[in-house]
C-alpha cells in the first residue's frame, strides 16, 4: 500500500516537471508556430543557475531561506530566452519548418556547450533545499516533503498559467496573436513584443522545471537533451499548442512510465511511443489539439 502511495507521488512529481516543460514548448508553438528543439536546454539552464546560486549563497544564508533562489533559474531562462527570440529566432518564422528545426537544434548545441564552458562537467546539486524540509513517513518509508511541495508548485504553475492566458488582457492579446498574426498586427498589437514575452514565458516554465528538479536530483550535462524527448511525447499525445493537452499528456506519460518501471521495465519507452503512435493515428492533432 505504501509503495502504491509513493509511486503515485513519484508519478505526480515527474508529471509536474514534464508539464512545466511541455507547457512552455506548447505555448511557444501555439503563438509562434516554431518547434523549439532547444527548449530542454532552458530547462538545464534553470537547473544550473539555481544550483549555482544556492551553492554560492549556502555559506551565508540559512537553508530554509535558500528557497528564494529557486525562481532565479526560471528568471534567468526567461531573460536569456527573451534575448534570443528577437535576435535569432524571429528571422526564421516565415521560413519552412526544416530551417526552424535546424536553427533551434543549433541553438541546443550552443547552449549545451555554453553550460559546460560556464559550469564545467561536475554535477551541480542543491540538496540542502530537500534536507531543509525534512522527510515524511509513509508506512515506514521516508518520502521527502520537498517533492510534495514541488507537486504543489506544479499545480500552482498550471493554475497560474491558465489564469494568465485566459483571464488577463495580455492573455487575450496572446491568443489573438496566436490565432491571426496579421489581424492582430492590423489592430495595433505590438506582435514583436508579444512574441518576445511568449517565448520568455515558455522559457520561464522550462527554467522553473529545472529549478525544482535540481535540489532532488543534480544538474548534469545533457539533462536537457534527455528530457526534451519525453516532452515531445507529451505534446504529441496532448496536442501541440494546447495547455490542457500538456497537462493531460504529462499525467499520462508520467503514470505510464511509473507503471512500466514497476511492472515491466523493458517496455518503458516502447509503451510511451506506442501510445503516442496510437493517438497520432486516431487523432492526428493530439487529444486537445486544434483541428487543422
Amino acid at each position, binding site marked *: 500500500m505504501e509503495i502504491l502511495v509513493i*509511486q503515485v507521488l*513519484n508519478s505526480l512529481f515527474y508529471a509536474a516537471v514534464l508539464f512545466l516543460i511541455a507547457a512552455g514548448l506548447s505555448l511557444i508553438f501555439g503563438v509562434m508556430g516554431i518547434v523549439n528543439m532547444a527548449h530542454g536546454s532552458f530547462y538545464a539552464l534553470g537547473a544550473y543557475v539555481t544550483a549555482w546560486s544556492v551553492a554560492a549563497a549556502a555559506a551565508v544564508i540559512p537553508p530554509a531561506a535558500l528557497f528564494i533562489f529557486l525562481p532565479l533559474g526560471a528568471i534567468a531562462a526567461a531573460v536569456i530566452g527573451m534575448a534570443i527570440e528577437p535576435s535569432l529566432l524571429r528571422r526564421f518564422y516565415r521560413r519552412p519548418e526544416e530551417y526552424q528545426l535546424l536553427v533551434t537544434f543549433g541553438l541546443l548545441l550552443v547552449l549545451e556547450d555554453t553550460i559546460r564552458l560556464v559550469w564545467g562537467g*561536475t554535477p551541480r546539486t542543491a540538496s540542502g533545499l530537500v534536507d531543509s524540509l525534512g522527510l515524511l513517513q509513509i508506512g515506514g*518509508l521516508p518520502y521527502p516533503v520537498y517533492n510534495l511541495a514541488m507537486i504543489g508548485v506544479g499545480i500552482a504553475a498550471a493554475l497560474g498559467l491558465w489564469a494568465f492566458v485566459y483571464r488577463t488582457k495580455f492573455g487575450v492579446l496572446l491568443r489573438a496573436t496566436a490565432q491571426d498574426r496579421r489581424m492582430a498586427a492590423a489592430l495595433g498589437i505590438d506582435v514583436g513584443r508579444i512574441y518576445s514575452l511568449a517565448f520568455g514565458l515558455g522559457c520561464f516554465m522550462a527554467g522553473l522545471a529545472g529549478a525544482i*528538479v535540481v535540489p532532488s536530483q543534480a544538474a*548534469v550535462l*545533457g539533462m536537457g537533451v534527455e528530457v526534451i524527448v519525453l516532452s515531445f511525447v507529451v505534446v504529441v499525445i496532448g496536442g501541440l499548442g494546447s495547455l490542457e493537452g500538456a497537462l493531460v499528456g504529462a499525467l499520462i506519460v508520467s503514470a505510464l*512510465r511509473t507503471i512500466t*518501471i*514497476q511492472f515491466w521495465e523493458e517496455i518503458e519507452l516502447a509503451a510511451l511511443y506506442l501510445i503516442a503512435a496510437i493517438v497520432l493515428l486516431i487523432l492526428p492533432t493530439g487529444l486537445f489539439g486544434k483541428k487543422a
Partner: protein
Amino acid sequence: MDKDEIQQERRGFLKQFGATMGAAGLGAAGLGVAGSRPVHAAAPKGSIPNRPVKVGHITFLTGAAELLGGPGQRGHILAQEEINAQGGLLGKRKIETIFADEAAGTDSNVKELRRMKLSEKIDLFTGVISSGNTPALGPVAEELRVLTLFNDGCTDFLFDKAVPNPKYTFRATNIQSADGVTAAIGAATHWPKVRRIASIQPDYSYGRNVFEHAALALGKMLGGIEVVSESWPKLGTTDFTSHITKILSAKPDLLLVGVWGGDYVAFYKQALRYGLFDKMKVATTLAFGGYPHAIGKDHPEGVLAGVHANYHFLYPSAERWPINKSFVERYHKRWNEYPSFEADGAYTSLYLYKQAVEKANQLVGGWPEDEAIITMLEGAGIDSPAGYLYIRADNHQGYKDAVTGLSKNLPGYDFPVWDPASVVSIPIRSITAPPNWPKPGQGHNESTAAADWIKKTWPQAKA
C-alpha cells in the same frame, strides 16, 4: 551466522581468488621500478625523422559521460606533455593530438576515425569510453590498418566477437566481465550473508554485462541467491524515484548498481532521501568512476564504490608503489584535481605506445614500422600508476589486478574515498578466462568467454 562465521567465510573468498583485503596487500605484483617517470632506456638507434607523430583521441567531451571522458582527455594530455618535454618519441618526434567528441554517436565516431586516418594521417588512435563504440570502431581500425589503443570501451564482445583476431587493435584497461565479478567478490567478502539480490543497471550492453557476471559470480560464491528485482533505466535517466520505490518494494539484502556518470550522482541523491541505503547493502561498479570530486560528502559510507575494477588514485599506496604517488602529484599539479581510472588508462596507453616504439627501435633502428610496434605491444608489460599492466598476445587485451573498496569520508579530501581497511585487491587471472579459452560460438553459447569459464570452473557453494 555469527561474526566468526562471517570472518571465516570472508577468508574463504579471499583465499579462493588469491585476493587481499586492506591497503597492505596492494601493489604486490610489479617489476619494482621505483622513482618517477620516465626511465630512459638506451639512446635511439638510427636516424629518426623529426616530423610529429599524429594521434587521434575520441572521448566524451560533452554530456553526462564527460565525467569519465574529461579525465581521460586530461590523462592523455599529461602524458603527451611529459613526452614532448623530453623532445618527443625517440627524442625527436613530438606528439600532436586531434580530439573529437564521442558524444556525437557511434556512426559519427566511425566517420571521424576514417577522417582522422585518411585526411589527417594519424599514426595512432586512442581513447573511446563507451562499450557501444569500441565494437564498431575496432573492425574499422583493422580495415584502415591504424594502430589503436582503446583506453576503455571494455566490453568482452570486442575481442570475443567483433574483432576475434586483432592485429592493429589493443585495449589497455580491464575487460568488462571483470567489473561485475569484482563487485560480486567485494560484496561477498564484506557481506557474505546477502541472498536477496536487486539490480539497477543502465539499459545497454554495459549494464547487461555487469548484471550477468555479477549475478553469476555471486551465485557461485554464495549459493542459493535469488534475484528479486531488476531495473533497467536508460542511459541519461535522472529521475530514479520510481526505480528506487520499486527496489524498496522488493526488500532485497543487496543492490547491484551499474548506473554511472552524472546518472549515478542523481541516483544516489534520490536513493539517500528515500532511505534506500539504510535498508540494504549497495555494491556499485562505477560510483567512483568519474572524477573523484564529482561525488559529494553526502554520499553514504560503507557503499562498495567501484572504479570499473581498474584504479583509485590512493592505491596502490604511496609507500608500496611510488609510481602512483608521483603520477597523482603530477596530475594534480597540472589539473588541480585527482585522477580517475580513465585518466590512468589514457595516460598509460600513451606510455605503452612509447615503450613499444622504443623497444622496436632498439631492434630494428630508425622509426619502427607499425608491425614492429605491434610485436612489441603483444605481451608487453608496463609499470602503470595502477600497478603492473600486461597486454596478452592472444587477444590484445590489457590485464591488471582489480580493485574495489567501501566508501568513507576521510580527512584531507572533500569527497569520499575508500576505507583503507576495506579495499579488496584481486589478481586479474583469478577472475578472467585464461588465454585461448573458447570464445562464444566455439563450443558454447554463453555471452562471453568469461561467463563460460566461470560456469565451468568455479566451485559451486551450497545454498
